[in-house]
């Protein structure tokens, strides 16, 4: 079969480029059904980007849903081989509520999941693939890496109240230092207990720079982990595009450890999002660890 590459639009070209990139690294393509039993999402509703799901009753009376997310389906069907590594990649449509119209939209996503025995080398590989995915847009990009373990420990130093923690994490996500201070003041938290969180949020930049500042001040194991994982970029052309920024946050009920977000110049929001989700695996009764990311192709449409 032969065809002229010119018939492909920008998004399609990117999809195929990503597919072949992930293939080179041993990721097997994962094809899944459009529908999934609703119960899978109902149990993990907070894991979803938006909590609305299109549902319908199948001919056998089962409540079904149009996939709002890919990761949960992949985890559900994974064999849970915690001593080896399963690498899968996908490009699929998901159905989510759009913020602008407030109605459902079909959104194209590409991405990968790495499940099983995850070590620093594999985390480095996933981050490398995230950087390469962003590079494929042909635009200037920034990959921001954060560590949920460090955020968690800074949060627990300020408060053990879950609702307050969630508010503080939201402020951290907005680089809102005055907000963090105000919340703590209003909640009667002794002054200074929020300092670690404020320090984390105010510390961002190149990996070497930030790790230098964190060493000796924060949880050593987490800092070491960040350092080890990010060492994969040393001496590569990506070194300047990878930064540490603790305004990248995620729901601690599902995620843990390394989390990251990708931006390309000219697109106002993050176009790539990912991280380790060992806690989701545990919740679903798995022994394996896991990490993955998704590229939001719809946001790149205008760029390609």
């Amino acid at each position, binding site marked *: 079969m032969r065809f002229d590459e010119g018939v492909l639009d920008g998004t399609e070209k990117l999809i195929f480029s990503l597919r072949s990139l992930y293939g080179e690294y041993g990721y097997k393509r994962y094809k899944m059904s459009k529908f999934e039993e609703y119960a899978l999402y109902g149990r993990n509703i907070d894991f979803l980007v938006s909590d609305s799901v299109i549902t319908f009753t199948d001919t056998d009376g089962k409540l079904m849903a149009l996939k709002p997310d890919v990761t949960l389906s992949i985890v559900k069907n994974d064999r849970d081989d915690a001593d080896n590594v399963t690498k899968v990649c996908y490009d699929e449509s998901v159905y989510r509520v759009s913020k602008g119209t407030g109605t459902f939209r079909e959104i194209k996503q590409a991405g990968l999941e790495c499940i099983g025995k995850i070590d620093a080398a594999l985390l480095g590989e996933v981050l490398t693939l995230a950087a390469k995915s962003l590079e494929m847009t042909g635009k200037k990009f920034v990959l921001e890496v954060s560590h949920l373990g460090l955020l968690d420990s800074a949060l627990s130093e300020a408060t053990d109240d879950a609702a307050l923690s969630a508010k503080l994490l939201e402020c951290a996500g*907005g*680089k809102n230092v005055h907000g963090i201070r105000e919340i703590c003041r209003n909640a009667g938290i002794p002054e200074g207990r929020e300092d670690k969180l404020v320090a984390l949020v105010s510390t961002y930049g190149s990996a070497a720079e930030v790790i230098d500042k964190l060493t000796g001040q924060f949880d050593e194991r987490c800092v070491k982990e960040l350092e080890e994982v990010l060492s994969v970029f040393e001496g590569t052309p990506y070194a300047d595009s990878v930064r540490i920024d603790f305004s990248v946050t995620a729901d601690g009920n599902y995620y843990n450890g390394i989390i990251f977000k990708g*931006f390309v110049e000219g697109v106002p*929001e993050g176009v790539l999002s990912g991280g380790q989700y060992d806690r989701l695996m545990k919740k679903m009764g798995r022994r394996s660890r896991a990490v993955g990311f998704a590229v939001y192709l719809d946001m790149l449409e205008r760029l390609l």
Partner: protein
Amino acid sequence: MDKMLNIALPKGRLGEKVYAIFEEAGFECPSIKENNRKLIFENNEAGVRYFWVKPSDVAIYVERGAADVGVAGKDIILEYAPDVYELCDLGMGKCRMAVAAPKGFSDDVNRTLRVATKFSKIAKDYYSSIGRDIDIIHLNGSIEIAPILGLSDVIVDIVETGTTLKENDLEVIETILPISARLIANKSSFKFKTEMIEKVAGSISRLTEGNK
């Protein structure tokens, strides 16, 4: 890619005061003071482009990246919950979000409370935090007349001096939260114009230190 820093300012008195601070911080744009109906002003030397937009739209311009930074009231930020960075509290345009009711009002908890407001989300969040069942009547202005006409029991609105309330026989029965103007930045712009945005945030924060 546009190397200029795009700044959205809220049209009106607050915006003019905010511009004065930007000017003091070294991001001047003399053409903005010319008395005309233009909405966009540039100063290539300082690398800044200002535009005046409706105050409640600033957050949208910034979230969507049409502006790299902007100044918006905390009320707008809470109401629209834009995905942006909130870099500093200017301590200007201070007021409070409050619940007001006709003088002598007492809340009958047996009934659904009817709340008229421009700020539906803030009102919903507040009443759900205290577990009160309410109905929202979304209005776009002249909120104060809603209780007088029996359209609502109370209103949730911004209160500055309280004069409008007093003149309409209303009084504040609860303060929800204090409001002031905030410097916000688009998340993606922050990555690619880091230095310039840091410079703006740093100088604005220094110059408004005394307001807090």
